[in-house]
């Protein structure tokens, strides 16, 4: 059940070029929260009216130095809302609504090998996912960004996943798009034994969805959308879909998502 709470910021630290990790304590919200679920975050008295959706990055136990019951958000300063968020000091108040959305489905005993595909700040939901999968299921991970400074938490993933990096400018890992090493990997694997989890900009997700169809690999996409409410009423966040129950050909990222199977999207 989502809750709407005003909570203090515990820490708000800059990691790399303009990417930040923000922590707040919300034991009642985090207890049953799943990776890729999200919060609607507002700054009380701030100059923006609407809250912004942020995927949960860390849940209790994800980061070794996390406070008990705390959640962490990973964000990059891209506009007004994120600039205001980045200016918050420890102890500042946040309006937090959550947990929202469906989140990644994680089997008790994963029979399929997890493959993580992240683009830029779309890496945000993956620390919590890696932690939820546990040390028995070290995922294969493909993590791409424009340049090396945009690869937030790359060292964290290096220790916990079998990691391939890609940058468009070649400043770290492979030069080019992250979907290129992914395609090579899928071509050399048995796709029926894999479960791909992807999050990133829409062009990347579309490319991942095409690979999912071509290799017939089970693929869940964590989507991002502009939304006013986060709980199903503004209808601002819809994406075109084609699956049963999608009677209007649109589904809400906030309720039916943010995680949708790749084949459901009618892009």
């Amino acid at each position: 059940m989502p809750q709407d709470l005003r909570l203090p910021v515990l820490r708000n630290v800059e990691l790399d070029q303009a990417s930040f990790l923000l922590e707040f304590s919300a034991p009642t919200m985090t207890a049953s929260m799943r990776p890729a679920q999200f919060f609607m975050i507002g700054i009380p008295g701030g100059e923006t009216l609407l809250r912004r959706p942020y995927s949960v990055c860390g849940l209790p136990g994800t980061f070794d130095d996390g406070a008990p019951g705390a959640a962490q958000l990973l964000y990059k300063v891209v506009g007004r809302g994120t600039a205001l968020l980045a200016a918050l000091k420890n102890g500042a108040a946040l309006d937090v609504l959550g947990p929202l959305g469906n989140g990644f489905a994680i089997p008790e005993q994963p029979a399929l090998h997890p493959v993580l595909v992240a683009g830029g700040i779309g890496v945000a939901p993956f620390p919590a996912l890696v932690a939820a999968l546990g040390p028995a299921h070290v995922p294969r991970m493909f993590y791409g960004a424009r340049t090396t400074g945009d690869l937030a938490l790359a060292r964290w993933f290096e220790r916990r996943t079998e990691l391939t990096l890609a940058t468009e400018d070649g400043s770290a890992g492979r030069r080019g798009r992250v979907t290129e090493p992914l395609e090579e990997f899928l071509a050399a694997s048995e796709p029926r034994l894999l479960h791909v989890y992807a999050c990133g900009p829409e062009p990347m997700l579309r490319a991942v969805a095409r690979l999912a169809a071509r290799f017939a690999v089970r693929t869940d996409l964590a989507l991002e959308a502009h939304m006013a409410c986060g709980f199903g009423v503004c209808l601002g966040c819809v994406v075109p879909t084609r699956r049963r129950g999608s009677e209007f050909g649109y589904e809400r990222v906030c309720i039916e998502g943010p995680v949708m199977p790749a084949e459901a999207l009618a892009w």
Partner: protein
Amino acid sequence: MVSPDLAVTLGPLTFKNPVLAASGTFGYGAEFLSYFDLGALGGFVTKGLSPAPRRGNPPPRIVETPAGMLNTIGLQNVGVDAFVREKLPGLRAYDTAVIANVFGETDAEYVELCAKLDQAEGVHAIELNVSCPNVDEGGMIYGTDPRALERVTRACRRATRLPLIVKLSPNVTDIRVTARAAAAGGADILSLVNTFVGMAVDVERRRPVLTKVSGGLSGPAIRPLAVWMTWQARQAVALPLIGIGGIVEAADALEFLLVGASAVQVGTANFVHPDAAVRVVRGLESYLVRHGIPAVRDLVGKLDTGIPA
């Protein structure tokens, strides 16, 4: 002091308190059950209903603007039949007024909607959304054409015994003209205002931000305009009014009550705090206590302009 009396009567309708949730910001009601008991509100207005389900517009559908937002949802809704069959039964358990918002593209569609809802158990009133194009008359917006507005209101009046609310469009030169037209057509109550047409431009891409170019502006940015229009309508017609436009807290609702609205609708603020409308109810109550005013209806129209009569 005994707790103040929050009940208000608007023509044929009595609400337990003057705070309603506005159409398009409250879904079909059930979406809010995780957050509060719907009985805390005077009532709520459903998402706009059409004769057939509507898919709505392609995304992007919303954008935040200074102290507000633009939307072009495109009237996505389940259609009146699915509403009556699937959504309405679950709402009967709650002690709150359910107001069905409807829109059509022809007079006949409005009449069909009113006639269907008239037969539905659990609908307390109908609100006409007249901010839609009238395809019979070349896409002229109903709510900006006083003649068409009076005619469609009269047709709906004949089609239902339910209290009839006409939701006025602010996209007119003089709101008093359309207020009088709706009154002449037989409306019981006027609600005002719907969203203002607006537009935002993505200067980097040199494109409109919204796919449909324009959208409806809502939120605190429109409140002074909406308060002014409510004040103007108050001078023009004797009908009870429901004020709408950028209400976030009790003080905002009080502006509308003081200029002559008997009730208010909270809209965009529901997106920010799911219980925003309940917070407004509580705030009104504490205002009444603080000022020693026994009943909220005592405040309606009690603006002191300081101008000698």
